[in-house]
């Protein structure tokens, strides 16, 4: 069954803070929310950003971010060029929120580090109710953010779409090379979860093949607050560059063999090897000649990716790996967290350790201090690691690391 994504212009956007406030009032763990509509190129720095979501609604009344049923069927409306960004000015000292900054600049040199500066941004700055820590506010913040994205898309129900994108994998010539996408999703415990239909991915029975349209239609949501630069925010699933490229190329230069979702951060050496072997087996099941393997977050998720790469190559499936480098600025060799000799075709999402030049915004929203204590306005250079999705390891952005 085909999936249709109807595009509506950003000019339909109307923000009614009252309605968002009402959503917050229904959440015991949240005290309040500040709602700001930011135009592209505003002199604003957003800090402590958790997630980014594109406004979506389904004309048939089904949930845009479903926790049951199947996404990626029928029609969904999207508001083009709009993002809902959520921030929390963190209470307490819990990890990872207390340590790992997440910045979006709406102008200045950092505007190129994320895609959001060219969009209309509805920024939600949440405050926790007294006594509620990070884990307690995470689910309510995500709920309100996703629901707000749905509310903001409501005007599309009464409008005519500018364009309808159609996603369907029809029959293609047998001689085209079959290419699968193996997309890693984090599950390292609370505040490090990606969600599949509302369930942490570690409990979703991965690795498994899913309809690629499900990813584009709200089946995946981010609750993963590890290093901001290496994060996969929800909007990057909704507008996934890899899945969309493979749909486009289907029948042209290749056959899209399927989307395989895998968990990152398997917790033991044995678990990692088993999961890697299973992912390779699933790639074989969909008769993939090649697998593009993407990465989520940093640290030992990179080991999962490398073991998966090796397992695929040993099973006869050629691989390309997408990941961010973590090369210190004085090093004259690229540095990766992990590497296997089979990883001979790597796409670099950029060097997380490199810095975006200093910039002083007129306004800061989300929290006045960066988690390292610097004043957010006059912080000086900020590393790509700290910009939301900047060195995205699904290959969402135009950035890469180059030798200079």
């Amino acid at each position, binding site marked *: 069954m085909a999936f249709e994504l109807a595009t509506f212009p950003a000019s339909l956007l109307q923000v009614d803070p009252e309605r968002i406030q009402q959503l917050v009032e229904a959440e015991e763990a949240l005290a309040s929310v500040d709602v700001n509509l930011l135009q592209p190129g505003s002199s604003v720095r957003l800090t402590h950003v958790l997630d980014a979501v594109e406004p979506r609604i389904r004309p048939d009344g089904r949930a845009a971010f479903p926790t049951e049923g199947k996404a990626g069927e029928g029609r969904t409306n999207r508001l083009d060029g709009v993002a809902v960004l959520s921030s929390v000015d963190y209470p307490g000292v819990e*990890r990872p929120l207390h*340590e790992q900054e997440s910045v979006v600049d709406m102008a200045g040199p950092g505007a190129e580090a994320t895609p959001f500066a060219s969009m209309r941004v509805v920024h939600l700055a949440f405050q926790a109710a007294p006594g509620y820590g990070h884990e307690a506010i995470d689910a309510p913040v995500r709920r309100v953010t996703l629901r707000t994205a749905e509310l903001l898309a409501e005007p599309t129900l009464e409008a005519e779409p500018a364009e309808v994108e159609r996603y369907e994998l029809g029959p293609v010539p047998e001689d085209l*090379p079959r*290419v699968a996408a193996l997309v890693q999703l984090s599950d*390292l415990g609370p505040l*490090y979860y990606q969600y599949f239909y509302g369930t942490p991915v570690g409990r979703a029975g991965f690795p498994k093949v899913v309809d690629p349209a499900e990813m584009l239609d709200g089946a995946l949501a981010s609750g993963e607050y590890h290093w901001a630069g290496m994060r996969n925010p929800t909007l990057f699933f909704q507008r*996934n*560059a*890899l899945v*969309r*490229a*493979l749909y486009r*190329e289907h029948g042209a*230069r*290749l056959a899209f063999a399927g989307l395989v979702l895998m968990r990152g951060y398997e917790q033991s050496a044995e678990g990692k090897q088993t999961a890697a072997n299973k992912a390779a087996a699933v790639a074989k099941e969909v008769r993939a*000649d*090649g697998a*593009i393997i993407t990465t989520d977050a940093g*640290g030992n998720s990179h080991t999962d990716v490398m073991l998966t790469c090796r397992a695929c190559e040993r099973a006869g499936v*050629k691989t*390309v790996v*997408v990941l961010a*480098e*973590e*090369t*210190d*600025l*004085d*090093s*004259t*060799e*690229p*540095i*990766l967290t992990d*590497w296997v000799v089979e*990883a*001979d*075709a*790597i*796409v*670099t*999402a*950029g*060097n997380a350790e*490199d810095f975006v030049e200093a910039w002083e915004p007129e306004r800061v929203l989300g929290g006045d201090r960066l988690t390292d204590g610097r004043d957010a306005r006059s912080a000086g250079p900020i590393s790509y690691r700290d910009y939301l999705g*900047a*060195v*995205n*390891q*699904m*290959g*969402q*952005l*135009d*950035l*890469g*690391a*180059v*030798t*200079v």
Partner: protein
Amino acid sequence: MKAVQYLNQFFAGLGGEDAAETPPTRLDGAVGPGRGLGPVLDDVEIVATVACGDDYFGEHEGEALGRLLALIEAEKPDVVVAGPAFGSGRYGYACARVAGAAAAAGIPAVAAMHEENPGRTVAGKAYIVPTGVNVAGMREALPRLGALASALAAGREPEDGSYLARGYRRTRNVGRPGAERAVDLMLSKLQGQTRSEVATAFDRVAPPDPVPDLAEALVALVTEAGCVPQGNPDHLASVRAQAWLRYALDGEERLDSGRYECVHGGFDVALANEDPNRLVPLDVVSELLHEGRIGSLHDRFYTTTGNGTPVAVATEFGREIARELVDAGVQAVFLSGT
């Protein structure tokens, strides 16, 4: 703004091969190629020229570099310019070393030479502007050298491509999403042409010889898990540690959770804090000792945080810890990683 230029004896007008033994010398203002460079500098004046004979530099490198750097620093320049040295090996080497030393001392520096000049690889953080292979390339080289030197003096980052790559990896907009680049790489690999955007050249550590008899061996505990005494008295960092630490075991047989904690910033430390032996397995090692399967245990454990640590720094930590262990007669290490 002020520049100091480095030249060899020949370009400084001190003589040819006969003057190659000239020790470090200071000359007022611009000399030789500096007269051509001056007009293409933007708001920068060459206030002094420092020179040295090529042979002298080669034979007394350490001393010559020290004296040249002192002469340079005395001028408090905004930028140091070395050469152009074109294809000349000895001169190019000296230019690169002088520029590199200035850069290491915090003075922006640029040398100019042919891309195959052996000096190219020893300039450290200094920039190198490419030139022709011989002095005929002077006219073309000076405007490029002047533009880059002016940018450095003004505190601007030079444009990519205006100098020879130093090997550093920087994040840039490459004009096409990584996902589409991945599809291209995949199709090309499936056609038998494997390409990569990351040239991997990682060192491979050869495993050491096995310990002949563990029951006779002195064994030590080392970790990068960020395990420290409760309260982190020596302020070990949770990320990008600047130091490693050692703590006495005082005959203890396990690490009590009330006395030790984990400050590592790269994973959820709840289980580690519940039982620090999960980081440093003193409990199990003590059992092995009692069973006679390990000869004896070194009386202190070594710890740091392995999280975002530059490889060069981690390598140095390893060398320092290993030196101390070897001096203490340790024959084997339990190295617990996270």
